[in-house]
Structures are given as C-alpha cells and as structure tokens.
C-alpha cells in the first residue's frame, strides 16, 4: 500500500483512539462486571455455589462453626448465572471491571453466616438466617422442630407418637 493511500484512509477514519484512562470507559448495556452479594438478603443456602462454573463462589465451614460464602473475583468468569439462580435475588451483576489487584487476597469477598445447631446433639443444621426464614414460611406444628437435626427430629417425633398411643418409649 502506498503511503498516499494509507494517508487517505487515515484522513477518512480520523482519530479513533479512546482516551481511557483519561476519560470514562465505554461500557455497553449488556456488559457484566463483578458480582455483588447483598449480605442483608443472602440466606447462605449455597445454590449459587452449585451453579458457579469455575467455583468462584464457595460455601466453607469454619472451625468456629460459622459458614462463609466466599467470592473469589480472580476466578469469576462473569457469566451472571449466580444472579439468575439466587432464590433471594441477593446477587447483582455490576458493571465494575477495574479489579486489578496486587494480591490475590484482595480479590476475595466473604459473607459470614451464623449457624443453627441441633438443640439435642449440637450438630450444625444450617445457616441461621435461612433456618429462621424457612421456619416462618412453614409455621404451625413444624416450627417447634426446626432447631433439631434430622436424626434427633425422627427420635423426638417417634417418642411423641409412642407416648400418645400409650407405649413406653
């Protein structure tokens, strides 16, 4: 290509270079950036961790008994599937992409959940918020069993029935 031809193309195209970082970036409507988990809404159910393709969202049990929903941005592929499946609508997909960081720890966001333990055997049953809300929606006679693990619940119910029919447990 001769230089004249090149110059005429350049004159037609004019300057296309974007001035970023000195001007705001062009972010389209469909762009997906990092996700944001709303700690007020999250139940700690872990549905999002099951759907997350690269396991960027994980639900970990700590030694002190708390459950931690951990989001590692460094592995997220920004697919937005977690936001789609979350039953609480706790996850929003933001348009934030300036996520560069000098350490991997800075790319981690944790949401800490208290847990409910079985009132008889002390085993962890599930996250406190989820248990509380689920009990509200069930209500009635079921509610008094909610702080029991499945094993202990079976025992308690069986004992109740036996007492009712007059068999000594």
């Amino acid at each position, binding site marked *: 290509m001769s230089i004249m031809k090149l110059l005429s193309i350049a004159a037609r195209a004019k300057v296309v270079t974007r001035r970023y970082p000195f001007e705001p970036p062009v972010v389209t409507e469909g762009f997906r950036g990092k996700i944001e988990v709303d*700690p007020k809404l999250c139940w700690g159910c872990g549905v999002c961790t099951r759907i997350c393709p690269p396991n960027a969202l994980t639900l970990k049990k700590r030694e002190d008994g708390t459950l931690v929903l951990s989001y590692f941005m460094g*592995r*997220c592929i920004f697919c937005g599937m977690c936001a789609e499946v979350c039953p609480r609508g706790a996850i929003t997909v933001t348009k934030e*992409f300036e996520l560069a960081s000098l350490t991997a720890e*800075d*790319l981690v966001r944790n949401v800490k959940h208290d847990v409910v333990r079985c009132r008889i055997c002390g085993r962890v049953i599930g996250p406190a*918020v989820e248990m509380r809300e689920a009990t509200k929606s069930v209500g009635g006679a079921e509610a008094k069993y909610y702080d029991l693990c499945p094993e202990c619940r079976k025992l308690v119910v069986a004992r109740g029935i036996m007492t009712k029919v007059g068999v000594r447990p």
Partner: protein
Amino acid sequence: MSGDSSKLLAKALTRLKRSIWVFHLNTGSCNGCDIEVLDALTPYFDVERFGIKLVGSPRHADVFLMTGPVTRETLPKVLRAIESMPRPRLILALGSCACGGGIWWDTYSTIGGYGKLKEILEKRGVVVDRVAYVPGCPVRPEAIIYGVLVLLGAVKQKVKHEEVKAGG
C-alpha cells in the same frame, strides 16, 4: 519481600517510567485474552501511546504478561521465560485463568493459574518483584490498561479484601 528489596523495586520502578516493554506468553489460554491484548494494541486503545510495546524475548522485557492457566505442557517453558527475565521481574496475570485457574481450576492438565505457579517459583528460588492480577474472562482492553497502571503503581487499586456479616 524485605524492606531493602522493596526500596530497590521502588527505585527500579522510577527508572521504568519512560516506557515498559512487555513479553506476552500464552500459557494455554483459550485465546480470548490474547485477542484482547491485541485489541489493546489496535488504534482504538493504542497502548503504544504510553510507550508500552510487545517484545519478542523475555530478556528484553520489563513485564511478563501471562494469559491462561499454565498447562502442564507449557510449565517448563513458562519457568524458563520467567527465569530469563532481568530484575525487576514484574508479572501481569491476565484473565481469570491466569489469576486463579478460571474455568479450568481443577482439570488434570493445568496447574491452576498464577497461585500455583507462585509456589513453584518460590520453591525454585526465583524472585518475582511484583504481580498484578487482572480478572476478566476475557479481560477488557481497558482493564488491561488499568492493570498495567496498578502494576506500575500509577493508580491505587480499588478492590480490597472484605468480610461482612450476613443479617436479614
């Protein structure tokens, strides 16, 4: 990093301000991130306006730009390339694959990104002066530019570790 070497790094970084030369290595990426690197070089983003340019040999490079989760096949070549870089060794881990293994985080044929590579480098006694993780799948050209700025200390990173308590 000891205080001494961080001082040296700061000094080295002031010398780097003129222009940085980048060696780009695909360590087994899907090519998505590599296309975005190319994008950053096109007239639209034109990183050469900052003096950033790609070089063909790690011996000439200031920054080692890696894309991909480091497959077992590429690992020896990646190590050789990093080892042949002069100090200060700066690494830009581009994309979710390079940052944390991405979609290939648990496959048998990849080591799982820079996190694992770091351990291997430490075991071999290879000093890396600074790393910047740039998440994205693929990374936007703007995110690459931002990542370079963070790596060189021109801007302060926005993200930080957070732990909040759930309550509803």
